[in-house]
């Protein structure tokens, strides 16, 4: 008999109806009255230049212009893990499109017109557009004051260089291990930048009212973190946390791009500059491409030591990250993925250098997978090449070296129980691994590819979640949390967790979008951690409420607390079968005694969760000694592709992904993440192709030329497999999986192409053009 009533069930999304009826309000849909002002940003045309002078006089003359602001009015730095960014570029610009000024006017057409009249005098500097260039000892410094920047203690910038952070992991003795290995194979893999392409663009409205209260409405994954960053940045103006309120409505897709603070601070600054009137900054699609976070590019130099029986002995991985002009968030991508760059394998000797490098390209930041998709392409491609050279089946090689419970991770801690082995076996079976298929059409080649994946939530060691839970007279519930519903189904799962504890059906539970004044703290909705972190907080809040209910019933009606339970929205007793007290009869107004007085009052639950066992402090030279990650989610994936050898186009008849999510609180939502994440990952391999010119300008900032998949591009069959090895400290055993479904997509395709055509492509994207020309070349030889 299923012990759960709501957990593990594919409950209908509680935000489903509001979204498909058009009632869901996104940031662009909010009205602010006739007093609303509009801001247009003046952008740098150069990737790297000194700002000599900004002449706003002509712009100010345009009727309808209220204010023009520049870095002069806001010379403040901000950032999440590092303070290396300004609100507006101050003395120099560091990427094409960087904000230099904002024109605020009564309507957007006026703001646009006036923005063209702002004259900025620049002195061009050499743009640094590659990691090789940035690392050259004679290269111009993009951040000459790097050593003075505030940063979290576990970052290590190299002063007087373009290296913003270097994460070094050293475990065992790689050189000795290489010397003692039967084989050492090395190669280089490159992955370029990618854009999130959430269908909703970034937008912000700010209001600094005449009582000195700053309210910022944003499409954000992180309202509390945004509030924190605004309060930090504007502290010199006398603004503190209590003066700042951040409100986020529904968000039209985030994928990491709406985490942290990117363009939102412009809205906040414009609001402060125009006290008493709301100001709106809305990004165009082009700005969404070049002036929000991008996924960093990477060049990975991988060296693997292995015995002839396939046992991996050592790995040396040097990851050069093109992290962009500002790395206040992106440096943690470099950090977190560096710690896990062995992939889910047992590797006794490890040397990893994850290098965060400044370039004059858009700032890199969080993107679904947080660096893992980037390094896994190289790692999983390389393992296949190694398997080929050793004559071992690539899946057998992975099984042999797959990480198990108790194995030592790169940073010295032990791996926890996990379903990796089960995932591999189930995927192997589903894709019919080993069965070679040949197409009847001589132009078509069929191939299969396999990869493992893993990821740990990348967070500071003190990322907290909290929840309030309040009842209404009809025993419905409002759960107040500050996690964000970005589409993953988070609100529904929180409702399910509370529903299970309190026996109230999810349809009677409302989980609202956050307002930092009213909803308690949540660090950010990133890292695939809020099902686990905030889920724990909600579960505790529900249990707290339940406890108060039982205590009250015991106190008021003399029923022993231990005998009470909740069922069908009533309090019942195991020792008194006809005791049935509906929650609605007392949940607000208390229980009435014989003398007419009441006991109790409104029941309000409170819960909080913050892991107390993680620490980012470790030896800076080796990364040993800390406990950097809370847990890993692991999995395996495989794909079958059909390649048209003449055109290079790839069709996907089948793709399989198994992920160990501990406990699938809502299986349909888990499967939804698999389908969506796989397609997003597949797109990075096959279609998305970001181009920059020699001056650092993005050439294709539109959907016309940066292709994201349409309904015509979906695989024929996607098979999600749910593995459940419980997370010991997760709500009902759950752990996150939202990012993970994207991570293996690139290498499974690269491996399948190699299987089909015998061509190993070591850089992404692997477009039809690349495949067709590679095959034509191979054929001609």
């Amino acid at each position, binding site marked *: 008999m299923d012990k759960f009533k709501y957990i593990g069930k594919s409950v209908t999304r509680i935000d489903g109806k509001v979204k498909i009826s058009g009632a869901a309000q996104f940031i662009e849909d909010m009205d602010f009255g006739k007093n609303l002002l509009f801001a247009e940003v003046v952008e740098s045309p150069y990737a790297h230049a000194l700002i000599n002078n900004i002449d706003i006089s002509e712009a100010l003359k345009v009727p309808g212009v209220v204010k023009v602001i520049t870095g002069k009015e806001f010379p403040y730095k901000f950032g999440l893990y590092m303070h290396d960014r300004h609100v507006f570029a101050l003395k120099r610009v560091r990427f094409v499109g960087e904000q230099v000024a904002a024109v605020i006017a009564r309507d957007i057409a006026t703001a646009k017109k006036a923005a063209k009249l702002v004259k900025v005098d620049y002195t061009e500097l050499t743009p640094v557009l590659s990691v090789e260039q940035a690392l050259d000892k004679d290269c111009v410094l993009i951040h000459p004051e790097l050593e003075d920047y505030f940063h979290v203690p576990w970052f290590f910038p190299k002063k007087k260089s373009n290296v913003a952070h270097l994460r070094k992991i050293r475990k065992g003795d790689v050189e000795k291990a290489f010397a003692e290995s039967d084989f050492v194979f090395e190669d280089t893999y490159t992955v370029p930048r990618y854009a999130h392409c959430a269908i909703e663009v970034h937008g912000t409205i700010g209001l600094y009212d005449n009582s000195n209260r700053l309210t910022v409405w944003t499409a954000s994954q992180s309202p509390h973190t945004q509030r924190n960053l605004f309060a930090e940045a504007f502290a010199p103006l006398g603004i503190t946390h209590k003066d700042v309120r951040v409100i986020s409505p529904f968000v039209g897709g985030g994928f990491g791009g709406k985490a942290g603070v990117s363009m939102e601070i412009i809205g906040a600054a414009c609001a402060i500059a125009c006290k008493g009137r709301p100001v709106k900054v809305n990004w165009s699609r082009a700005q969404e491409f070049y002036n929000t976070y991008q996924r960093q590019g990477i060049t990975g130099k991988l060296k693997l030591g292995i015995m002839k029986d396939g046992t991996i002995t050592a790995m040396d991985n040097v990851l050069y990250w093109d992290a962009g002009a500002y790395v206040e968030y992106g440096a943690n991508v470099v950090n977190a993925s560096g710690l896990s760059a062995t992939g889910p394998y047992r590797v006794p000797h490890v040397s990893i250098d994850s290098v965060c490098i400044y370039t004059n390209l858009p700032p890199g930041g969080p993107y679904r997978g947080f660096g893992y998709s980037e390094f896994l392409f190289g790692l999983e491609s390389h393992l296949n090449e190694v398997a080929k050279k050793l004559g071992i089946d690539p899946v057998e090689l992975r099984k042999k070296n797959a990480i198990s419970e108790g194995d030592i991770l790169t940073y010295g801690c032990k791996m926890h129980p996990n379903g990796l082995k089960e995932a591999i076996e189930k995927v192997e079976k589903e894709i019919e691994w080993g069965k070679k298929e040949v197409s009847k059409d001589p132009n078509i080649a069929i191939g299969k590819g396999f990869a493992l994946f893993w990821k740990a939530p990348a967070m500071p060691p003190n990322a907290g979640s909290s929840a309030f839970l309040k009842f209404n007279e009809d025993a419905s519930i409002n759960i107040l949390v500050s996690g964000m519903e970005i589409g993953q189904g988070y609100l529904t799962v929180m409702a399910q967790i509370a529903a299970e504890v309190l026996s109230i059906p999810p349809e009677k539970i409302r989980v609202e979008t956050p307002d930092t004044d009213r909803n308690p703290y949540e660090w950010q909705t990133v890292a695939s951690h809020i099902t686990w972190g905030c889920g724990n907080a909600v579960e505790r809040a529900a249990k707290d409420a339940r406890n108060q209910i039982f205590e009250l019933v015991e106190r008021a009606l003399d029923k022993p607390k231990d005998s009470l339970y909740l069922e069908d929205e009533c309090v019942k007793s195991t020792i008194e079968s006809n005791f049935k007290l509906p929650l609605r009869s007392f949940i607000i107004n208390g229980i009435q005694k014989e003398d007419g007085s009441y006991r109790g009052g409104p029941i309000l639950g409170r819960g909080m969760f913050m892991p107390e066992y993680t620490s980012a402090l470790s030896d800076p030279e080796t990364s040993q000694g800390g406990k950097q990650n809370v847990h890993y989610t692991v999995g395996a994936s495989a794909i079958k592709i059909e390649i048209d050898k003449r*055109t290079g186009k790839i069709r996907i008849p089948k793709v399989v992904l198994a992920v160990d999510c501990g406990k699938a609180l809502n299986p349909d939502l888990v499967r939804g993440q698999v389908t969506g994440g796989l397609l997003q990952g597949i797109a990075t391999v096959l*279609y998305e192709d970001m181009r920059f010119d020699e001056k650092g300008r993005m050439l294709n900032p539109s959907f016309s030329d940066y*292709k994201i*998949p*349409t309904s015509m591009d979906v695989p024929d069959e996607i098979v999600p497999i749910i593995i459940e090895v419980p997370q010991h400290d997760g709500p009902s055993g759950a752990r996150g999986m939202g990012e993970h479904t994207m991570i293996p997509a690139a290498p499974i395709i690269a491996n399948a192409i190699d299987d089909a055509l015998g061509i190993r492509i070591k850089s992404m994207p692997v477009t039809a*053009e690349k495949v*067709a*020309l590679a095959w034509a070349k191979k054929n001609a030889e």
Partner: protein
Amino acid sequence: MAIVNNFDYVKPKSLKSVFRLFKQYKNPIILAGGTDLLDMLKSGAVVPDVVIDIKGLNVLKRITYKDGVLFIGACVTYTELIESKIIKKRCPIILEMAKQVASMGVRNRGTMAGNICSAVPCADSSPVLLAYNADIVVKSSSGERSIPAEDWFVGSRKTALKKGEVVRGISIKLEEQPQGASFLKLGRYEGEDLAQVNLVVIALKDKTYRVVYGSVAPVPLRARKIESFLKGHDFYKAVLKEAVALVESEIKPISDVRASKEYRLHMAKVMLEIGLEAAINRLSGKKPVYGTKLL
């Protein structure tokens, strides 16, 4: 979202009114489907003082076939082309091309006439009209003239349309002899895309051929060397191989953000193979059915 520059909007009821408006304003521009024009208005690429909406002119909405001449009015949308029985019967290659233009919501508004007036190198309609020796019928206050397709395309975004003229429609004198044709469009994936290479192949019963490439030059390009090589030949593999070998001497595509010249050349050859085979099959009434996506 905003179009910064303001202009008047007028929706006349007759062509005469259109010409009157041409006289009244300095910088008039014609609006049919708007799927290209709106973007140009937003970017400031065009700065008119009046936008003249010709969708009120019913005479421009018709598709007719009479005495061997197919006429497509300037306001006929791609969706209407796809749904037209006349097009399906008389010139199904237009159906095949129209189905691959953009997506449903754009096809419901966009027109072939608009497409060839924008005259971007990757336009889908252009190689079709050139292959069929279409005439673009334009009208002005001083009368009407027909511009043959090969004279219409002057350069990238440049046509032979003069100031004061409006496209009334596209006229195609269809040949009576049996023929088979194919339209191929190279995109980066299955979803909507701007063509990196376009190709139209027509195979006629008298063993003459027409081969027109789009998106490999500023204007659509007739592959005359290939056409004259194919002339008189039945279709067999050796012929095909030699025809394909001529592609490199026929076209000199460029590299841009969408495709490299090497891939364009490679695909131009692959497309010729597929297109020629399909056209020949259709000449003898065989599959693939018109409207199939051949690439």
